[in-house]
């Protein structure tokens, strides 16, 4: 039976039982910020948010990750690898847009013959418990980007919030396995499932922000040297807010740090930084904000469409809400789709 019901009051019990077998990551609220953290009890988690500030990509792709450490020992250079932990994890409370972002990120981290084990091991060992969206924000446009508020892509088990309880829907075998670990979960009734369906329809209707990406990729091909880019980038200050808060942005830098001992770390990087393409010779092919803004838009809506078949935007709206100067990617895409090249 893939449909179960969980009373909200029973969530701490569920989490408690989960922590016995899994490392559990869930949304936690500290003052005004809701972010995904490792929890050890159900009382810590907070599911009353619309969306978290930081996307959950950091559970698989942390901002700072040690790849290996090295030191000069008696026998010469000693290297200690830091493989991704193989412990089983549950990532709970992920909105459908963010869950979909994992599917997109998978394409980058396991493309062709190059597999990023740091990301993939964590991904492999994690069960995703999604949280369907009853009240999308005005900046949500997941439906324009191939997603949906009750979307199941990337989700193993979907929580759908009804009154006072959650409907659990097992989407994958892994989700089913998880449900079976809690035999005390009650079967869902037909009324619950129908209510959830109505909530889904309401949520989809509530998404008023529509962004058409049709033909945008092809048009961008012809727009590399277009003067439109001169206008768009002007107010951008070149910080990293949009890239760091974007669920599908995954550019990184690798550095060595350390004094007596060294460590090689991977950190988030941003194409909006002037240093991103600064070459050793001193030449920078993207010398100003214009080229960098162009890169961001073309990467998200053109290059990846060619490489992976779809754009790298899940319509979560974080970049729109958090941009210090209210630069709105929806406006840019709209401008492109109606631009006379």
């Amino acid at each position, binding site marked *: 039976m893939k449909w179960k019901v969980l009373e909200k009051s029973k969530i701490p019990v569920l989490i408690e039982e989960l922590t016995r077998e899994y490392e559990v990551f869930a949304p936690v609220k500290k003052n005004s*910020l809701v972010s995904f953290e490792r929890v050890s009890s159900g009382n810590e988690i907070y599911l009353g948010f619309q969306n978290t*500030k930081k996307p959950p990509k950091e559970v698989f792709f942390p901002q700072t990750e040690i790849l290996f450490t090295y030191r000069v020992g008696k026998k010469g250079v000693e290297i200690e690898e830091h493989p991704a932990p193989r412990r089983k994890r549950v990532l709970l409370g992920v909105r459908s847009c963010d869950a979909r972002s994992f599917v997109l990120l998978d394409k980058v981290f396991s493309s062709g013959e190059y597999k990023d084990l740091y990301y993939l091991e964590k991904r492999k060992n994690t069960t995703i418990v999604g949280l369907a969206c009853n009240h999308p924000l005005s900046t949500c446009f997941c439906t324009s980007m191939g997603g949906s508020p009750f979307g199941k892509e990337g989700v193993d088990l979907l929580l759908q919030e009804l009154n006072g309880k959650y409907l659990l829907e097992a989407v994958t075998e892994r989700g089913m396995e998880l449900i079976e670990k809690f035999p005390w979960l009650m079967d869902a009734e037909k009324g619950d499932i129908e209510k959830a369906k109505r909530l889904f329809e309401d949520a989809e209707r509530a998404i008023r922000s529509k962004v058409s990406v049709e033909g945008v990729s092809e048009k961008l091909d012809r727009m590399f040297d277009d003067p439109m880019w001169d206008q768009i980038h*002007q107010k951008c*200050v070149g*910080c990293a807010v949009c890239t760091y808060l974007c669920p599908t942005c995954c550019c990184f830098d690798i550095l060595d740090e350390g004094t007596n001992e060294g460590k090689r770390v991977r950190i988030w990087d941003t194409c909006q930084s002037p240093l991103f393409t600064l070459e050793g010779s001193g030449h920078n092919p993207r010398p100003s904000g214009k080229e960098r803004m162009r890169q961001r838009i073309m990467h998200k809506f053109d290059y990846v469409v060619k490489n992976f078949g779809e754009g790298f935007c899940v319509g979560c709206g974080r970049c729109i809400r958090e941009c210090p100067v209210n630069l709105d990617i*929806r406006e840019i895409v709209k401008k492109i789709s109606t631009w006379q090249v």
Partner: protein
Amino acid sequence: MENLESSIRDIARKLLSDKKVDLIIGYEQGTLPLRTTPCFVDKVEDVQKLVWNASCDANLSKYLVDRKEKVGVVAKGCDARSIAVCIVEKQIPRENVVIIGVPCLGVIDRKKVEAKLGGKEVLESIVEGEQIRVKGEGFEFVLPKKDFLCDSCLTCRHRNPPIYDVFVGEKVPETPEVNEFAEVSDLESKSVEERWAHFKEELSKCIRCYACRNVCPLCYCKMCFVDQTMPAWFGKTNDLSDTMIYHIVRAFHVAGRCVDCGACSRACPMDINLRELVKKTEKIMKERYDYESGLSLEEVPPLGEFKMDDSQEFIK
């Protein structure tokens, strides 16, 4: 407010058509309630886009550095002061900028509004005099504007731009007696351990996006210390020690130059109270060197000069 808006448009229109400036930088309506966004107008017909309201929070002087063309910029008190600092530091030629000074009674802190609404999204907002009407799904509230102004505005002592080429409207009353350092004094009265614990907690939220640095009009260095390699001053990871050092050094770099426009705190996506740290440098400047930045074009920034009788009680 409406008068000011149409005055700004008139002034912009005149400046452009008289070819006194090549570009006007002002504010236009944002794509979200309670937000405006910087607007770059170079054609007279686009002047209609310009707005002026209590959500005009961005410090537009950020966009003035490194421009060859003549620019007219809409500037509140704090913005005009940061322009003055940039002029004194020779980053903006005085003759290249026409400061359209606008008296400001404070900008709304949308984070305070969001906090008050407990996470409910504002779908529509209208400022009606001293009140803000916010509407969302299933609610409508009227909030007293004065309770939702940015912290930097609550202690503002320069509502009228001290430097300007054109003044829009009438001067507004100032509040010189306000204690702008109350928050800082409060922290100073705590113990060293408490302060450390406090800053450690606040700064641990930092994701090193550098929004604070990038919106600050005084952070105009072509090679910021953050990006320097050979030697690298500190690491780029979000290690807490490196993060705290970034913030300390940035606060030091804006010491004696910061005008407390609040752009850094507003820009921070993680809601870190950055002003708390930087405001201390302002207090140091006031108390040790009797200095307030950005009030005149003839001043020398305090860290660029010295006096024989400077305080040195801390030196053995």
